[in-house]
Structure formats: C-alpha cells, structure tokens
C-alpha cells in the first residue's frame, strides 16, 4: 500500500523521500505508482462528467454516506402513525366515556354481592358448592380463629388459589386486639371477572412475631357460574 499512501499524500516527508529513492530504483514499484498516478489523473478528468451524467436520484443519495436508518423510526411515518393515533384516540375515548365512568360508578355505589358460607376443610368439612355470576362476583367469609390455646399471631395471611392451583390473591390482615374473643369474620370479595368454574381454595395462615407462617385454616369450594 506504499504507492497508495504516496498518492494519497499520507507519507511523512522522510518516508516520502525514502519511498522515492526506492521507487527510482525499483521498476516494479515504479510501474505500480505510474499506473496509480495515471488512474488518478484520468479519474480526476472524468469524474465531473460521470457524476453529472448520472441520474439525479442515484446521485442524491451518494453525496454523503447513507445514514443507517433506525427501522423503528419508520413507524413514525404518517402512513403508519396517522392510523395508529386514530385508533389510539378511539380507545382513549371509549375508556373515558364508557369504561371509566362505569368503573367509577361501580366503585362509588353500593352493590349486592352474594355471600357464600364456607366451611373449613381443616375442620372436616367437604367441598362446598357455591353459585355465583360474573356480574356480581362473590363474597367469601373468612374466619380468623382466635380460640384460647392458639398461639398469638401478629397478623394473618389469606391466600386464594384458583382452579389451576395458582395463587390468585394474597392479602394480610392485622391480628385483632387483646380483648377479641371468638372467630373474627372477614369477607373476601372476588370480582366476577376473576371467577372461573372449578375448585377454589383459601388458605389462612397465622404469622408469628418472628415471621414464621403456619396454616391454620383451609377452605375449599367448587364454584359454579350461572352465566
């Protein structure tokens, strides 16, 4: 590449002198350089005409190197972006005009939820069949046993498992105060959207002061949806 460096004027003065001294003594290098120089001379003469004769679109992208485009930016072109924004506006409009008001109404207004009595499986009860519908959901009573002789817990953990055995909900309630006597009832409200036909189970665990958890109740019920 010495000839190329020489033609590109990349050699230091000393290196250029040394190369020239060799060049005049080496017919092969001399021929190489002469060919390179002749090509450069002729290219300089022809390039303006060639560049001018090329079609405009071909030249337009060649004055500067092509910038590598980010394909993700293509999605911002109007052809894609306009329909996407229109669809987004429709979704936002529907949510603001229909969905959110309905949810707000549901959250702020009293509603009836069927209460399903449960029997503790650990107390020898069989599965209980519960009927419910997706519109109202269902409220499951959960008893926190506070009978004498049971260890003191600082809180209780309630875990709900769906028919596939997956944990669907986990909640913690603080233990009742010192003067509490007897089982403390709670309601576990399950919205209709979460309900599936099948066997649900609820595990009630007591959490000791040092963090140890002990399952003290397990409820199982077979849910039968009516809609």
């Amino acid at each position, binding site marked *: *590449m010495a*000839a*190329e*460096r020489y*033609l*590109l*004027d*990349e050699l230091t003065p000393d290196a250029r*002198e040394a190369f*020239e*001294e060799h*060049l*005049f*003594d*080496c*017919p*092969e290098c*001399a*021929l*190489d*350089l*002469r*060919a*390179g*120089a*002749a*090509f*450069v001379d*002729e*290219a*300089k003469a*022809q*390039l*303006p005409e*060639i*560049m001018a004769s*090329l079609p405009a679109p*071909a*030249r337009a*992208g*060649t*004055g*500067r*190197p*092509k910038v590598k485009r980010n394909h993700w930016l293509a999605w911002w072109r109007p052809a894609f972006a306009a329909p996407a924004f229109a669809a987004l506006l429709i979704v936002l409009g529907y949510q603001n005009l229909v969905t959110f008001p309905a949810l707000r109404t549901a959250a702020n207004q009293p509603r009836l939820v069927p209460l399903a009595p449960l029997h503790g499986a650990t107390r020898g009860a069989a599965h209980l069949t519960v009927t419910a519908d997706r519109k109202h959901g269902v409220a499951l009573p959960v008893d926190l046993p506070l009978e004498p002789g049971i260890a003191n817990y600082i809180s209780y953990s309630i875990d709900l498992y769906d028919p596939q055995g997956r944990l669907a909900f986990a909640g913690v309630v603080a233990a009742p105060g010192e003067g509490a006597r007897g089982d403390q009832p709670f309601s576990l409200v399950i919205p209709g959207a979460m309900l599936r036909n099948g066997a649900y189970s609820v595990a009630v665990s007591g959490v000791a002061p040092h963090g140890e958890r002990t399952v003290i109740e397990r409820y199982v019920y077979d849910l039968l949806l009516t809609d």
Partner: protein
Amino acid sequence: MQFHSFDAGYVQSLCAGDRRTQEHFVGYFTALLQVKLRSRLQSLHAIEDVRQETFARVLTVLRKDGGLRQPERLGAFVNTVCNHVLFEQYRSSSRSESLDAEGRPELPALGADALDIVAARQIKEKVREILLDLSPRDRSLLKAVFLDERDRDEVCREFGVDRQYLRVLLHRAKQEFKAEYVKRIGNQAPLAANA
C-alpha cells in the same frame, strides 16, 4: 533488447547516444519525475524545467570519465540529481519566482502519434469503466479526495470510512487499471521495455 534492470550496458548505450535507449530513459524517468514533482511544484513550467535540468545533469555525469560507479543504481542517481535541482529551484523561485510563478502560459502539448492517441483513448475508456463500476459512494469519495482535494480525515468522517478504506479503494481501482495500463503504456518500463 529486454530491459530487466539498469546495468552497465544500459548506461553505456545511453552515453553512446543510442536513440532507443535515450527514448526509453526519457520516457521512463519523465513519468516518475512528473509524479514526484507535481506534489512539490505548482507550475507545469517549473516541473518541465526541473525535469530537463535533471536529465541534462545526469547525462553530463554519465559521460564523464568514471561515470556512474554503480550502474544498477541509475534510478536512485536520477532521483538524487532531481532533488538537488529541486532544491535549487526552491531557492531560485524564492528569490525571483521566475519558474514557479502562477499565470504563465502553459507549454503546448507535444504532438502525439496515432498509436499514442489510440492508447490514450483506450486508457480513458478503461478508467471510465472502472469508475462506473464503483458504487456511487466510492465515486463520490474519490471525487472528494482527488478532485475537490478536501481534507482526507474530514472526507473519511463524512463518508463513515477510515483511511484504510480509502487506500484499499484506490488500490483495487489501480490494480484493475494496471493491466490495461501495462498493455498500452507499460512498455516504457525497464521490466518490459524493448530497445
């Protein structure tokens, strides 16, 4: 006679005034001197002056008794003489700017025979073919470097290439061109010269 390198026989023929040897000597070194001098001198007049003065001094030394001690170093000797002439040229032009002045009329081109014209045309066509085969970007790169004479580093940055890319681009173009060049012009080189 096939020139494989410069030797005592070549120098002897040159000093004896052998026409073909002299033509080869002038043709071969003119090409090299022009490449060398054009990066140092702006004016074609100055280049021509230095070239002719170099040849005159070389031939004068060769014809003296004793001549050139190492005939195989004839090329290096020509280069050394050229450097001396060039140095004198610099000193001379800095005093009077007589030879390297801008604006002086160019010397008319010497007449060319039909073979030269054909060879020149074929070389033009070959260069055109090579240039058209290049990508548009590579053509623009060559134009920016050689025609527009822009700063190499700036051009490389703009085109997103490094200096090595530029060298390789030139090397490939030169190699492709060289075969045609040797076929048309290369017989002036000692390796393939017939005298």
